[in-house]
């Protein structure tokens, strides 16, 4: 049976890709952000996940606004990236676990989440940057990746967006699907984006430290408290693009066991964004009987 080893939350700001390409991780501007990944690297080395289920939002690479799914799942053996038009380097492809993707799709649709199935799907910086942050040596070499991925895309761009409660439920459905997967896989779940930030309008540059702290506190043991916020309230409190927190809610939902925060790093600013990096432990609520 698959085991959900834990969750990671991380921002995915494009300029991180540039900083990595230019080797500026130790610059005074970048160091407080990148050092938040020391713990992530240790944890990944310890837990050795085989698969990462990555909740993210596409920014106009795979999807355009003319045909935009609310929830989409990749079902491919390989995910390529491409030029996104804003000058960050194109990342190497990442292998996918298509069998697991179809298992998730089958169980999600049975669970009344009618997702869009994507046998071809380009992954944008919202996947590739977290991958490079979590597995920097694999991202920058030709060596095989230590993990495969299942990308789960959530619309955070064109309103109406799915609610916080809905994304939490999506995650829970995926968590249950993982628990019933018959292969002996170790799975990490990842939520990317956020936290508070706004790129557009005269409120551009808005960040909200207090609300971010509340989100990071509540998401661990009381995600239902956050699920009560409407999208409108979320935009107001965390900024137009702070709504990427929906990806975090889904990640949290997929942690079906007893959840605790192992590490938290919070830093303002990364570009226009308040950046958070967290690692959550997930202990199965009931110990499985030995086979």
């Amino acid at each position, binding site marked *: 049976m698959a085991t959900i080893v834990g969750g990671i939350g991380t921002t995915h700001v494009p300029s991180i890709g540039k900083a990595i390409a230019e080797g500026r991780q130790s610059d005074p501007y970048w160091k407080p952000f990148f050092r938040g990944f020391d713990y992530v690297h240790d944890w990944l080395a310890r837990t050795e996940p085989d698969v990462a289920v990555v909740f993210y939002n596409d920014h106009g690479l795979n999807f355009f606004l003319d045909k935009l799914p609310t929830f989409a799942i990749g079902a491919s053996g390989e995910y390529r990236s491409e030029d996104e038009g804003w000058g960050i380097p194109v990342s190497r492809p990442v292998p996918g676990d298509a069998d697991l993707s179809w298992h998730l799709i089958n169980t999600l649709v049975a669970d009344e989440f009618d997702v869009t199935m994507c046998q071809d799907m380009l992954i944008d910086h919202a996947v590739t940057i977290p991958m490079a942050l979590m597995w920097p040596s694999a991202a920058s070499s030709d060596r095989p990746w230590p993990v495969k991925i299942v990308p789960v895309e959530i619309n955070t761009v064109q309103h109406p967006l799915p609610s916080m409660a809905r994304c939490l439920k999506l995650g829970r459905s995926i968590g249950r699907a993982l628990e019933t997967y018959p292969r002996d896989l170790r799975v990490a779940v990842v939520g990317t984006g956020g936290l508070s930030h706004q790129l557009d309008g*005269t409120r551009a540059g808005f960040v909200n*430290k207090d609300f971010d702290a509340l989100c990071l506190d509540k998401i661990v043991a009381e995600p239902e408290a956050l699920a009560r916020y409407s999208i409108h309230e979320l*935009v107001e409190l965390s900024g137009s693009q702070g709504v990427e927190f929906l990806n975090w809610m889904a990640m949290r939902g997929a942690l079906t066991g007893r959840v605790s925060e192992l590490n938290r790093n919070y830093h303002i600013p990364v570009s226009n964004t308040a950046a958070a990096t967290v690692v959550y432990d997930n202990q199965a609520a009931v110990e499985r009987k030995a086979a």
Partner: protein
Amino acid sequence: MQQDIAGTTIFDGAQAQKGLALNRMCFSFNNAENRAAFLKDEDAYCRKYGLSDEQRAAVKSRSVLNMIEAGGNVYYLAKLAGIFGLNVQDIGAQQTGMSVEAFKSKLLSAGA
């Protein structure tokens, strides 16, 4: 009725409909050849994508706020801004009427 959020345009159905041609043009800028074609003949490129007069004027003015008013979505507008070597901090400064240095300092002090 929900209260408007100051300085914020929700990219909803009304904006999406209004902005489709402009956002579609910006989506094309994922491709380097298209970026070059825009730079070579901006008028012809905008005509090809059927921009409205308001959208054409907004692009010409290089004002991000005008482009948002014309239905532009910021993730797509960022691809256009990239053609001119501008990043989200540059366009943040432009929209808030600040210098880029002042905009960056504001963010730094938000973290202090």
